């Protein structure tokens, strides 16, 4: 099942760092969490694009990096001027993750239905 590869990669990366017991200083902990959220958004967006045959490597990779950095930067600026701007990133990214997940779900359901009809 080639489609399970991303999940396996996720688990592998997670386990490696988790067992290596790597932590970051408390000051930038919230930025790291935000970057992780941006990464989650990019990966799920990538899967959706792939399923829709619209996948473009450059958009995917740059989206991952730039979104993570932008989200962290936004949060940093917010902290400087006393506005909780990181909430904006959390809401937008979180919302997009939900939308993309539901599209992926639809896609798979359609596909399974099609496969059943053919057999």
């Amino acid at each position: 099942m080639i489609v399970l590869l991303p999940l396996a990669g996720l688990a592998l990366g997670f386990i490696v760092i988790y067992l290596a017991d790597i932590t970051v200083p408390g000051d930038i902990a919230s930025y790291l969490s935000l970057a992780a959220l941006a990464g989650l958004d990019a990966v799920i967006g990538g899967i959706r694009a792939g399923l829709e045959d619209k996948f473009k490597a450059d958009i995917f990779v740059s989206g991952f990096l730039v979104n993570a950095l932008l989200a962290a930067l936004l949060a940093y600026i917010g902290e400087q001027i006393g506005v909780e701007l990181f909430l904006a990133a959390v809401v937008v990214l979180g919302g997009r993750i939900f939308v993309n997940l539901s599209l992926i779900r639809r896609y798979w359901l359609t596909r399974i239905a099609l496969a059943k009809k053919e057999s």
Partner: protein
Amino acid sequence: MNAPLDLKRSGWIWQVTILSLVLGMLLAAALKTQQTLKRSSGIPTTRVSGLAQLVLDEKDRNSLLRKEITDLRAKVDEYERALGEGTTQTELLRDELQKAKFLAGLTPAKGDGIEVTLRDSTLEPPADYPADLVMDDYIIHDQDLLLFVNELLANGAEAVAVNDQRVISKTAIRCVGATIRVNDVPVGPVYTITAIGPPDVLESALKIRHGVIDQFRYDKRLAKNMIQVKKKTNLGLPAYSGSTLFKYTAVVDPERKPK
């Protein structure tokens, strides 16, 4: 399903996989960090900055009040000195006052005695140790401090302090949230009880069979790990620095006959 997932169509899966690997790393690092932060402070990071500001404000206010106390005490001392420079009668009065202050713990004190150090356990609980007892047994509680202070006082300690907070007649030792307060001042873990009194008597009173150390915890390794008793010469104890205000209690003067 449709079997020929050809390379052109499945190329993206590999790229997604690679970034998933990175994402997994990010998630793990974030999770680990939050876990350690939560363990050390018990507060999620998103709330830390606000709470830190509160702590700072309170600290400022605290130091202001502390300064006020020292100023007021200095003023009192000044008045007393002025009093003492008068006649022999006022001088006697001053001596009497000094004695009363010493009794009340309002002056620093020094002398021989012992020092008891209590710290949270560094031992790993054994696997079969009841989980609800770990929290109870492996850290120092306000009851422990109370027990030790009480035992010292019962055996001839004349002046006692916990982490430089002098124990006086109004002293309370109790737990507020995760910290212990003595005289309403939070004291951090590694608690040092200093007591002026007969060093040998005090030490053996603590170490006697069925005494407070002998009966310390169910896990007998803990007493050795968490308690340290040392005899000390020339200990210095600070004066009580809290409020001496009495709101509800009035003095009953025994020499004045009731009307």
